[in-house]
């Protein structure tokens, strides 16, 4: 994104044609931002104005106050924060170890193991809800935050991404450290991990946004205020009878998305580049 490359140069396009195209791009952009703009309007105005668009409409934060008090959102925020932190930490540690083994060790069955790991890219925990629920029940973990995160601790995507990165590390660095008597784990921590820092950041952003937004599995496993993440809390909140007060529901909606949205606005470039980096495989 840094260089203003233009793979479609003018090609003798007339100014009118160019203007038309710019208009099209903008129309699409406005259309794309419209739902969010609509939500912002409704959330920051009294409910009398939730569907009336007048420039002079008074601004208010009351909807956020009401939403915050109507459901234990503070607890939901805490739960989600614990969930995404736990999942990310586990994914990074387990992924780093596994990726290192796959990238730099020779052993029989390596390709088979790698294939079995990649299987998770297709068969995600998201569709194995019935069996995983039975497993959590058997383990006595139902309705715990650990149970929400556990199926995602080992991430094929993370292992794959780190393996590809580790493979680009020059072997000489590895060998040099080994000659000096460093153990495998020391080499990993001193040589590989620091060199893969941008990939860790990219993976972290993708993982956090995925698990912040995840809904179906948490809905199934969590059953109380103490474990429910924000997405499930929001769903419980907006589906129980709020008298369909859209102002409060949109305020709650914005509240739950706010950390990601603000993070995205502040670190737009990193976000986009992370998703890009994570996507190129």
């Amino acid at each position, binding site marked *: *994104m840094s*260089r203003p490359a233009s*793979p*479609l*140069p003018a*090609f003798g396009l007339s100014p009118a044609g160019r203007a038309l195209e*710019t208009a099209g*791009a903008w129309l*699409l*952009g406005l259309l*794309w*931002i419209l739902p*969010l703009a*609509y939500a912002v309007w409704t959330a920051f105005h009294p409910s009398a104005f939730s*569907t009336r668009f007048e420039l002079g409409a008074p601004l208010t934060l009351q909807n956020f106050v009401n939403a915050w008090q109507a459901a234990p959102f503070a607890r939901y925020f805490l739960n989600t924060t614990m969930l995404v932190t736990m999942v990310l930490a586990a994914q990074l540690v387990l992924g780093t*170890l*596994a990726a290192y*083994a*796959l990238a730099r*060790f020779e*052993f029989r069955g390596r390709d088979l*193991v*790698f294939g*079995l*790991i990649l*299987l998770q890219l*297709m068969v995600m*925990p*998201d*569709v194995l*809800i019935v*069996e995983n*629920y039975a*497993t959590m029940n058997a383990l006595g973990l139902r309705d715990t935050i650990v149970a929400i995160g*556990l199926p995602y601790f*080992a991430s094929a995507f993370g*292992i794959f991404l780190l393996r590809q990165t580790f493979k680009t590390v020059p072997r000489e660095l590895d060998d040099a450290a080994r000659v000096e008597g460093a153990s*495998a784990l020391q080499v990993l921590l001193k040589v590989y991990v620091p060199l893969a820092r941008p990939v860790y950041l990219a993976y972290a952003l993708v993982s956090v946004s995925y698990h*912040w*937004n995840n*809904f*179906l599995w948490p809905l*199934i496993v969590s059953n109380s205020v103490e474990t429910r993440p924000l*997405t499930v809390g*929001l*769903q419980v909140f*907006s589906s129980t009878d709020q008298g369909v007060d*859209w102002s409060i*529901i*949109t305020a709650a909606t*914005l509240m*739950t*998305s706010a950390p*990601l*949205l603000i993070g*995205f606005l502040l670190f737009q470039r990193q976000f*986009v580049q992370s*998703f*890009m980096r994570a*996507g190129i495989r």
Partner: protein
Amino acid sequence: MFRLADRVTAWLLLLPALALLVAFTHWPALATLWHSVMSTPKKGRPARFVGLDNYRGMVEDEVFWQALWNNLIFAAGTIPVSIALAISMALWVNGRIGGRGFLRLAYFTPTVLPMIAVANIWLFFYTPQYGLLEQITHGLGLPSHNWLGDKHTVLGAMIVVAIWKEAGFFMIFYLAALQGISPSLAEAAALEGASRWQYFRRVLFPLLMPTTLFVLINALINSVRMVDHIFVMTRGGPDNASTLLLYYIYQVGFSFWDSGYAAALTVVVLVILGAVAVFQFGFLERRTHYR
């Protein structure tokens, strides 16, 4: 032969991740197969082998066929449009268009928002009488319409939400690909007197093909996985017109508590994902290498 110590180290490094993967991916996938030929255990009546009974029930289950059909329409409606939009977005944002920063932001924002949250906004959007859509159509003098309450329009309304959510995400991959394409290709094409459309058709689009395949795989998986919005917007209604497969599995497994039948339905989803995998390894992997 490889050194013993190295082999042991390698397996120790792999062990934690592998154990969890087996426990929550491989084992449940196999257990699903097994449980799909078992009856649902009830109080005092443990699960017993019932052969293909669950599958027989599935063939006769109209809701299953409807969910499968809905899912096909959902995929067919979502994927081509979101890919086409993603390419346009990427071309615009990558070019010298005015307001690039805003456009990139606008296109990408839906990707970072939780589906469950945006579904609430879209629900409000579609609400009869006072929703935004209704206000617009009313302003144009069109008759009132309950988009989510009518079984002929509900799936279309969901497809629009899915396209809106996904197009900006796919744009990213095209953007990455476009930045790897040398501008001299365009210059050469322009010198040859090619039109812009010809350049896109003959040069750019073929060069973007690996990206398109990658995006296609992602889109196919998403069309199976994306069900969050159904919980907020329609709960599968009206009359199952917006039920998708995974949502139906949820209903059968966790509302009707029929785990045997839910397992059989899950097998169908696994077969679909398997077909996507075969497609991927047949087409994609020939050119992408893991080495």
